């Protein structure tokens, strides 16, 4: 039960302003979700480099010397940029999985928010304005991004319960609604080897998509599957390394608005989230149809 915003840029000239635009959109959706906020930003990345975004309840202790310790463990060049409770660790792309394992061993208190070549996820409990400011989202550049403000329904108000959820490399998902069969689906995915960090229904949807894509499905095909296998009310907005997708359940009574221009595709739970975007007056604005998958890929 929440506010969702999303922005997929087509015009590279807007990329330096992605964070600024998304942060504004996110803050507009505060009323819909004052409990916590989160944002996933996809950067251009650097060839051959991978990123882990990690979060800590005790950042001073956890992040001190982490780059040195990781270098000793996985080798190669290790970068570390601390942003409040989060840090972005940069390693050689082929050492990303090893780095993730090493982090788990070196700093058991750290939570991995995301892993991939482009994605960084920041999320915390608190008002969207404060969350965006803590992580200096407005200063971030990128190609696409998704943000979420949360009003928790049945699961806890914690950092781990905030959206976006990332269950695969460079993947993320946010959700507005409430799933009614997520426990059964989670059991099935666990048997198939997926790991879960929370009891949150949204994490199940994220893991479902990751699992389908691991099995070889494309983004659109995996999203089609949600209409068959997930029950309840949902609007999902999904990000991948190069893609951006939207799907609503067949009843489709949670709000959702989209806008498209030559420069971008935007998503908002309400139109007012998008009023600050350049050229919005001339955009094609529509509400996504029920049980219809929309996706854009670079």
């Amino acid at each position, binding site marked *: 039960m929440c506010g969702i915003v999303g922005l997929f840029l087509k015009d590279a000239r807007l990329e330096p302003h992605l964070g600024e635009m998304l942060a504004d959109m996110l803050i507009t959706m505060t009323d819909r979700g004052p409990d916590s906020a989160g944002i996933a930003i996809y950067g251009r990345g650097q060839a051959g480099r991978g990123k882990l975004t990690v979060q800590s309840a005790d950042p001073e202790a956890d992040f001190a010397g982490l780059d040195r310790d990781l270098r000793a463990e996985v080798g190669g060049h290790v970068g570390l940029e601390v942003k409040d409770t989060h840090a972005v660790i940069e390693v050689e792309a082929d050492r990303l999985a090893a780095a993730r394992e090493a982090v788990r061993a070196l700093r058991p208190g750290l939570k991995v928010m995301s892993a991939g070549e482009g994605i960084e996820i920041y999320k915390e409990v608190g008002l969207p304005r404060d969350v965006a400011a803590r992580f200096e989202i407005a200063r971030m550049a990128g190609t696409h991004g998704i943000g979420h403000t949360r009003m928790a*329904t049945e699961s806890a108000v914690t950092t781990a319960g905030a959206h976006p959820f990332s269950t695969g490399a460079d993947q993320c998902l946010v959700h507005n609604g409430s799933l009614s069969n997520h426990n059964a689906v989670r059991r099935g995915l666990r048997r198939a080897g997926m790991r879960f960090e929370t009891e949150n229904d949204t994490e199940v949807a994220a893991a479902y998509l990751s699992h389908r894509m691991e099995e070889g499905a494309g983004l659109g095909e995996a999203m089609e599957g949600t209409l068959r296998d997930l029950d309840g009310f949902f609007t999902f907005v999904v990000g991948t390394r190069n893609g951006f997708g939207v799907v609503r359940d067949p009843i489709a009574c949670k709000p959702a608005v989209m806008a498209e221009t030559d420069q971008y595709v935007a998503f908002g739970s309400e139109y007012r989230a998008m009023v600050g975007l350049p050229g919005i007056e001339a955009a094609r604005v529509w509400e996504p149809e029920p049980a219809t998958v929309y996706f854009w890929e670079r």
Partner: protein
Amino acid sequence: MTEFLRTPPKQSATFSNDQNAEIRRAAATGIYDIRGGGSKRKLPHFDDLLFLGASISRYPLEGYREKCATDVWLGTRHAKQPIHLDIPVTIAGMSFGSLSGPAKEALGRGASEAGTSTTTGDGGMTEEERGHSRTLVYQVLPSRYGMNPDDLRRADAIEVVVGQGAKPGGGGMLLGQKISDRVAEMRNLPKGIDQRSACRHPDWTGPDDLEIKILEIREITDWQKPIYVKVGGARPYYDTALAVKAGADVVVVDGMQGGTAATQDVFIEHVGQPTLACIPQAVKALQDLGLHREVQLIVSGGIRSGADVAKALALGADAVAIGTAALVALGDNDPSLEAEYRRLGTTAGAYDDWHEGRDPAGITTQDPELFGRFDPVLGGRRLKNYLRVMTLEAQTIARACGKSHLHNLEPEDLCALTIEAAAMAGVPLAGTSWIPGRGAAPY
């Protein structure tokens, strides 16, 4: 001799006579059983709790002499005009349509004389109830039958109904027999057709939208009126928390013994949680948000006596609401009408076909001949008497526990007779300090 050795006939507990009769009825008619009222099965209830009176460790108050206050404020969080009631027993929402005009009038008369509120229902506000109710709560329901801004403004409080304990997740139902000209006109519908009201509101879904809906109602009424949110007792911890987050001043939690004008028996008996189990969960939600007593909690579903009132308050409710009990006080199911109940194929005490509109007591009907028998002045007086007795009973118990206000009753004043009730209410089993389930993961 062989006669003597035969096994006596044995009825199946699984395929009981009742169950088999229902199978035959379904096979013959092709429709599920529809009825009024709440759950009829035996459930853990307030009867399974007892108060620990005062003696030496605590000192009791003197009955009749030392004051035990009963008043309650509702809607103090945001409303410019919160409600002040003399007693913490209110009348639950029951629609004009399901009830006759004179029955609504009697509820208004009795409640007003006793110093409490009445509530409209799924059919709009009638002059009978507005005219005779000192304090009237106006319901905003999914059907929006009769909804209009003038009535919003002349109500004393507004209750957004999300669900009912008899059928959490279900909509209203009023069958054609009761759609008279007047009911049809109030609801903008043709006369005599079945009405299956929607289960979700037409213009919002979920707590984020509800917050905006509440804002709109507050703006229409210039922030004067308290806004209640009523939920069926199914997932009361989350639903209470979300109602509060969406901006409710008062949360009403209706347990599964709560009645309905008409719904499927399978719904009434198999969906929801007993009222006893709902209260601690709702209270916990309010406590976790730091808003217990600041956002008030009204509990309904199976409240019958002053003991029930005292127990609900001790568990953390600010007030209770009664529906079925109020109808009984008015004369519903009265044994004096036994001959007529027999003609309807039932018996006094079991009559629940309120949707058929043939109520000999003139309460759940739109038939002028039948409701003409019902005297709203006398009915109002009976309800007032009953409300006074409930209040006196609750005061008696509270004084015995040393309380000068009913609201100072607390869970520690209670013990439970059964393990089930102890676990559900979160109070120790009598004679022990054991609260089953305490320490288990929260909801």
